[in-house]
């Protein structure tokens, strides 16, 4: 009987079973670490030594190679969380809970880094660490939402119940993502508009675009590695908690 039900499961529910997931992602972890390291070495080399200075900003243009990938990830991680939230609400999938929980602190750190590098870049080029510009303000709101979600995770004792409630809240918070995306078009104050992903092609020359893309992939892979590892840790933590509970039950 058990074999029969197993064969009727789709491929997705098979690879997404927490135990199965651990089994097939475990061998992927170290190769991903390797790719991330190589991308960082090559990307940083290009960013520091093999790309031109900006004719206006001079050397400070190199901050872009860390700022832009962090800013991209700050939104990408939220999208991952929102998709996982859908997985929790629609399919009640335990792995979606784990993915959502593991992504929140990572997203908060990437957002904080984006704001921090932006401030460091803003000081020499705009003459100020901070301005209440649309893009910056909406990114700051994103950071606050991340922190609120982390606080919410920590407040719940029952993680299964927490996941469903937090999924609802995560989807509500997703309204902020399009606001960040279009903030530079709606309020054109200080932050420049999109210059890489545009309908009429990038407005950046290839000599700067290549290192930017390398760093872009380096940071994205870094997120994948950290997210995967955090998910493994969370699955193990839940297993350990389950074992503890069972042991306590056996004693009582």
């Amino acid at each position, binding site marked *: 009987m058990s074999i029969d039900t197993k064969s009727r499961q789709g491929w997705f529910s098979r690879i997404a079973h927490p135990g199965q997931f651990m089994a097939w992602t475990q061998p992927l972890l170290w190769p991903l670490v390797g790719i991330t390291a190589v991308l960082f070495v090559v990307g940083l080399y290009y960013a520091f030594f093999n790309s031109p200075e900006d004719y206006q900003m001079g050397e400070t243009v190199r901050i872009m190679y860390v700022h832009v990938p962090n800013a991209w990830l700050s939104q990408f991680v939220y999208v991952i969380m929102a998709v996982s939230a859908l997985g929790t609400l629609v399919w009640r999938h335990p792995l979606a809970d784990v993915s959502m929980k593991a992504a929140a602190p990572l997203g908060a750190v990437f957002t904080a880094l984006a704001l921090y590098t932006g401030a460091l870049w803003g000081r020499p080029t705009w003459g100020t660490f901070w301005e209440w510009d649309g893009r910056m303000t909406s990114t700051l709101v994103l950071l606050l939402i991340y922190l*609120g979600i982390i606080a*919410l995770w920590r407040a719940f004792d029952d993680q299964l119940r927490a996941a469903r*409630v937090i999924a609802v809240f995560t989807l*509500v*918070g997703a309204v902020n993502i399009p606001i960040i995306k279009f903030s530079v078009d709606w309020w054109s104050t200080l932050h420049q508009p999109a210059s890489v992903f545009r309908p009429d092609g990038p407005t950046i020359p290839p000599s700067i675009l290549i290192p930017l893309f390398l760093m872009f992939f380096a940071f994205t892979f870094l997120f994948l590695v950290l997210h995967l590892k955090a998910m493994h840790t969370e699955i193990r933590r839940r297993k350990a908690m389950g074992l503890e509970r069972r042991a306590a039950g056996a004693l009582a």
Partner: protein
Amino acid sequence: MNAFGAVLARELKLAARSGGDVLTLVLFFVMIGVIVPFAMGPDKAMLSRLAPAIVWIAAFLSMLLGLDRMFRADHEDGTLVLLRQADLPFSAIVGAKVAAHWLLTALPLIIASPLLAIMLAMDMPTLGRAVVSLLVGTPALVALGAIGAAVTVSIRRGGLIAPVLILPMAIPILIFGVGTISTGAGPDQSDAALLFLAAISLMTAALAPFVAALAIKWGED
């Protein structure tokens, strides 16, 4: 509609008979208006320039303070579980509770706002705009607050988390609320802000009962 009215009436009756709560909130709202002049000095020109911001901050803080009373007591004594068995969809019940919460917490603040206007040296037209902006904006605040209260209702010490969750999302209400009152950018600008505020209010008031009901259901399972 009958059941909706019954839930609404029950909330109002409970508030009337237990008393105190509503007046404390109004007191808090007025007190913020009293405290700010002490902090900034009683310079009337400056006070009246900052008055729109102070009114909205006071409204924000008092609304957040009252969030916990929306679902907490009914969750703890099991009333929410009983209400979920009713014929009325649970989101309609949550809608009734949200409406009652607005009547009990936002309306008294709006009635008390002339008091704040005197202390902050507002003139009559500004007071009129302040009342309109609070009338139009507070439903959005209550609706968003309902989501925060619903998400945190099953947490034992959830009182502080709901405001932390809701505040960043409520920033647009603050922006357009203050924009409606102040005329610094011209009358067209404050009219546009009022329309935006109305749009946000309608959207959140329409969607929040469903979201809040979902969060309560999933938090209780």
